[in-house]
């Protein structure tokens, strides 16, 4: 059997790095359906899983893939699927099932430019809000966004850890450029990889309740086939997992799945502050767009403008507190993303008019040029002077 952690240096693309991250932290089930630009995740899994005692299955569509990873997760496996916009839309219903049944799993969306079939081979960041709101009903989600093959490796592990810890589907929102870009990926030693596994029940099997939680709002999860004889439903349910179709139980259940995220924001929200110390302006961005911002910040420095970057790693839940804090420090904010304003809306909401917020959007198919960022930061700077 081949090694599951390929410790060493690799020149691979983001999709491959994603697959390696998953395997490195114990993912042993992948249900796939090909779609550009996420196919390489599936292909790598198809090649690697059989080497490490895992199973790759190609399902008949994305509805089935999503359902299958939920099933496998209840069978005790760490499970993943990958897709892009059209497939992500199709997965929405069963992502909702994962949310309400509190099933750990990871869904990778390598974003391309939409809407619809759009530009299948070109980049976009248009599914940000969809990741938050795409399934019906009210819930909270975790979504993470890497900006390089190395990050996608690391973040895939983080995604599994969060998903196991908080028992929910975690979404990796990457994009075509990161997915298809090859760079050096350093895979650490197996021992250095921190892995979180779901809590498993301890007491007697008969008394096991799949949704009976303590203060942490996350219940231990039994494995199907082990004799716990639990029941799981997509209906509103109580701590036994039994359907109880009343507003009271609905309230309890929905608040629980919402609060396990809302109350653990500190633990879940990752970001990186780049040259924000003493900066006059902040660029808020994520994924591939960070790379452009990095170059722009360098160029601005040459022009004597102090501009930093807030790189969002956790997209959802949204880093509200951080944004509010940054408002206190800077004179203006620029939001940069490859869509027509999604995180921009969130930033506006948090900033509440404290400082000017500008937006640099892109309809998709390409990444920005650094000069576009520079122009807008300079505008912010000029506006500030008047």
């Amino acid at each position, binding site marked *: 059997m081949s090694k599951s952690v390929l410790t060493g240096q690799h020149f691979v693309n983001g999709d491959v790095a994603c697959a390696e991250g998953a395997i490195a932290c114990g993912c042993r089930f992948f*249900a796939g359906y090909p779609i550009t630009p996420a196919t390489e995740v599936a292909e790598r899994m198809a090649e690697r899983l059989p080497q490490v005692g895992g199973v790759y299955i190609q399902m008949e569509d994305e*509805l089935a893939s999503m359902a299958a990873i939920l099933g496998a997760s209840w069978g005790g496996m760490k499970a993943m699927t990958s897709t892009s916009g059209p497939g992500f839309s199709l997965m929405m219903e069963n992502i909702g099932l994962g949310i309400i049944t509190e099933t750990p799993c990871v869904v990778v969306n390598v974003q391309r430019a939409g809407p619809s079939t759009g530009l299948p081979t070109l980049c976009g960041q248009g599914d940000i809000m969809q990741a938050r709101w795409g399934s019906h009903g009210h819930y909270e989600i975790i979504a993470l966004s890497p900006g390089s093959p190395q990050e996608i490796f690391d973040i895939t592990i983080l995604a599994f850890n969060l998903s196991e810890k908080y028992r929910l589907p975690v979404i990796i929102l990457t994009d075509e450029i990161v997915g298809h870009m090859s760079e050096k990926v350093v895979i650490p030693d197996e021992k250095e990889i921190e892995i979180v596994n779901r809590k498993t029940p301890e007491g007697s099997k008969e008394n096991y309740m799949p949704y009976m939680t303590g203060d942490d709002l996350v219940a231990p999860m039994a494995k*199907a086939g082990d004799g716990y004889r639990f029941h799981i439903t997509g209906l509103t349910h109580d701590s036994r997992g039994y359907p109880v179709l009343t507003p009271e139980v609905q309230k309890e259940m929905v608040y629980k799945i919402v609060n396990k995220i809302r109350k653990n924001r500190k633990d879940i929200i990752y970001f990186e502050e780049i040259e924000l110390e003493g900066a006059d302006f902040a660029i808020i961005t994520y994924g591939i767009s960070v790379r452009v911002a990095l170059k722009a910040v360098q160029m601005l420095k040459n022009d004597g403008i102090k501009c930093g970057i807030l790189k969002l790693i956790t997209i959802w839940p949204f880093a509200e507190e951080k944004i509010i804090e940054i408002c206190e420090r800077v004179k203006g904010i620029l939001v940069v993303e490859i869509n027509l304003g999604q995180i921009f809306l969130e930033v506006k909401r948090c900033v509440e008019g404290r400082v000017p917020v500008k937006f640099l959007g892109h309809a998709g198919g390409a990444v920005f040029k650094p000069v576009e960022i520079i122009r807008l930061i300079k505008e912010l700077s000029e506006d500030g002077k008047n």
Partner: protein
Amino acid sequence: MEKIEISPLGNLLREDRIPHIWCSGCGIGLAFSACLRAINGSSIEQDRFIIISGIGCSGRAAGYTYLDSFHTTHGRAIPFATGIKIARPSSKVIVFSGDGDLVAIGGNHLINAARRNIEMVVICINNFNYGMTGGQEGPSTPFKSRTTTTPYGNFESPFNIPYLVESAGAIYIARWTALHVRRLFKSILEAINKKGFSFIEVISACPTSFGRKNKLGNPLEMLKFFHKISVIQNNIHTRKAHLDLSNEIVVGKFVDIERPDFFEQYKEIFGSFPGEEVD
């Protein structure tokens, strides 16, 4: 509610959830009871059984079964079951759901699971309509039958479901009416012991919707009617397994063959299947 130890099939029933939601005289209860008796009747360790349902009146079965049991989304019981079965290859997976769930919205998964010949027993309650939502037309509704969405009579023709799943690759196929309680029991028991994809269609009365719309009388009359027009023809080719409410319902065990199942084929490629041994 306290557990009444004495209840029939109490060992497999979530007593605290009984009474179930099924209407008076609904055929689902009969089929469900046959299913539980078959589980009891098999010599397989009960903790290995996992029951998975989609959404619908029939889909509520999982919720009444005192086993690991999953009530998934509409149409997705089979791919969910596929995930579980692969993760726990030694489990015995039973999918219990309705015609709408399995053959309308879930049709693609049904045929693909049959193609894969992945071991599971699919029990499909065919009551000719969507009971849960009040009795609408679906791919199992007979031509000219009335439902709430075919108030002038259905202008579509139904699938011959056994034929469909045979063409897709199922290795065990039977059809019984809900009143064939003993034969149904036996079929489920046989199917549980098959290596591969088994499919059992249960012609069932939905007196509340289909029965009322089509003037088929009270539950008892409806049940008797289905039973009366049914003709047992074991081993007949599924193509000829006609189902015509104005004529006859061909019932029987139609298919019972061997063909390498998903796990066997997997092992042919890889030598072994990860995880537990498949028995």
